């Protein structure tokens, strides 16, 4: 072998054998299944408020069969147009949502929210480009997408194939602090949060229903995944609490929940993660042991705990060891 065999692309997002198997499987399925695959057959839109529709995402990770339809996505219909609260986890997921919108209204899709950088929340946006909406994102979203967009896209292409993945869509309206979106008969207040779940989290409150859309600042049932700042997330959770909403549409979990108990569960986990990690650092418990011991008392409370807790500890440890 010689150096000429080096092709950088081979190293950027290497496919795991799992991915290859899945990709093959997806290829076989494409010919005989609806756009979203088998898992989508069960999907429905729930009307969680007047003219506000939410699809519950699967409590799972992305697979070829589920088109990364794992986040709670939806839309609300205003007098002047439709705002998409979350676009979906892939082009296919976004197309499914767009078809659901068309079943319920002929109003134009004027706004699409990109709640943060994670693929399950932004790759649906490609389905709405043709509608020329305002794509709303956190002021730090563009650079986060610049850093990770293609990385995520390649991994998603490995799973779903090019056609069902779609492009990386950038925000056209950046929110650094807050913004008001007017849909004629209803308004949304959009808030840009400090580093928390990620470094580019947006939340929204809808004026008519008082519903809060915290996106992935609120996980319910599914274990929160930490990719921003643990201390920051606890701070932003306090901010959500003070926003005056009683009901919320979490990024993952049921389509709508009472905010206070859901936030209490979330912060319960984050505090267990923070305190456990701090204690491990103080006792010189190394990171490879901490991942197996921290926050274990939370294990029964969360789906996918074993998949994400160790990773959360790894992220938390790096943040807290420099305190």
């Amino acid at each position, binding site marked *: 072998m010689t150096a000429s065999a080096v092709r950088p692309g081979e*190293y950027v997002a290497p496919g795991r054998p799992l991915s290859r198997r899945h990709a093959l499987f997806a290829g076989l399925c494409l010919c005989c299944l609806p756009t979203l695959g088998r898992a989508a057959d069960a999907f429905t839109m729930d009307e969680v408020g007047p003219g506000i529709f939410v699809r519950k995402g699967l409590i799972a990770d992305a697979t070829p069969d589920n088109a990364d339809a794992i986040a709670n996505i939806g839309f609300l219909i205003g007098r002047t147009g439709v705002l998409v609260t979350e676009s979906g986890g892939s082009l296919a997921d976004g197309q499914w949502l767009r078809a659901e919108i068309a079943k319920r209204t002929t109003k134009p899709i004027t706004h699409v929210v990109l709640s943060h950088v994670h693929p399950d929340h932004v790759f649906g946006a490609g389905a709405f480009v043709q509608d020329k909406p305002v794509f709303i994102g956190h002021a730090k979203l563009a650079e986060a997408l610049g850093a990770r967009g293609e990385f995520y896209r390649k991994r998603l292409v490995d799973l779903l194939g090019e056609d069902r993945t779609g492009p990386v869509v950038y925000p056209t309206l950046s929110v650094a602090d807050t913004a008001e979106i007017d849909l004629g008969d209803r308004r949304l207040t959009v808030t840009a949060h400090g580093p928390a779940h990620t470094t580019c989290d947006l939340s929204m409150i809808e004026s008519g229903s008082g519903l809060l859309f915290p996106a992935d600042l609120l996980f319910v049932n599914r274990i929160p995944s930490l990719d921003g700042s643990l201390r920051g997330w606890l701070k932003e959770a306090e901010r959500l609490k003070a926003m005056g909403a009683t009901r919320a549409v979490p990024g993952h979990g049921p389509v709508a929940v009472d905010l206070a108990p859901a936030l209490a569960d979330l912060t319960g986990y984050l505090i267990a993660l923070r305190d456990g990690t701090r204690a491990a650092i103080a006792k010189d418990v190394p990171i490879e042991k901490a991942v197996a011991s921290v926050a274990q008392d939370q294990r029964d409370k969360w789906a996918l705990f074993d998949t994400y807790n160790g990773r959360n500890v790894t992220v938390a440890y790096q943040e807290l060891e420099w305190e």
Partner: protein
Amino acid sequence: MMTRTDRKAAPTFALALALATAALSGSVAGAARAAGASDSDQERAARWQEIAKSIFGDRRIETTDSLVKIDAPGRALDAALVPITLTMPDDGRIKAVSLIIDDNPAPYAAKFEFGPAADPAELKLRVRVNNYTDMHAVVETQDGKLYEAKQFVKASGGCSAPMGMSDEEAMKGMGDMRMKFADSQPGKPVEATLMIRHPNFSGMQMNQVTRDYTPARYIDKLTVSAGDRTVFTMTGDISIASNPVINFAFKPDGKPIRVSASDNAGGSWQHSFNPPSPTN
């Protein structure tokens, strides 16, 4: 399997590879061929033969299960931060240890050369792993013989994984260091944890503003001394995780621990730490 549309990547990668191979001994071009998760044991063994030859030449390497042991998670939780423990219980016989991550773009991750103040019994570091790979630790004993141990690790994308912050933010406080000392007994080696603020850019991460690749910038030399006696000198590479953390043990003589680090871009930092007096 992957196709790439960004042509800019190739020279940057080549540069990273060139820097990486220049930093450690010899060419590892043979190792840079496509490495796959589905490779057979024979293919992995053949790749290791090539890498070992490029690093150690024709020197014979015996396998060992006592002189060095690698502990790494079978499946990494975070490919950009894979904790590795190297155990070398035979104090006095170990002169140096090399860590090689066979299927990383620059496989030779680190070499530690131990000095008179070292207790090499246990050494920990955090690395990036870019693919399903064999990992090799090769120790050189005082009599000049080489021994290897191996562990297979499942991870992917660790070298190209973005850091989740801007380059400027990632470089904030670059060169800051901390050292923690574990409780110790008089006359016994002291365990210490060295933390260094440094992004250790791999050269495979996208810059968020320019959308080009951030050039590789990594700690390439690190020397830790207890007074005038060397504990270890590390030669490092892009496979070391950002904000490097190294756990090691040293034989104290009451003098401060001095750390001197430099990176491949000319950065250079020195810090001194006072170990606690042994408690009786």
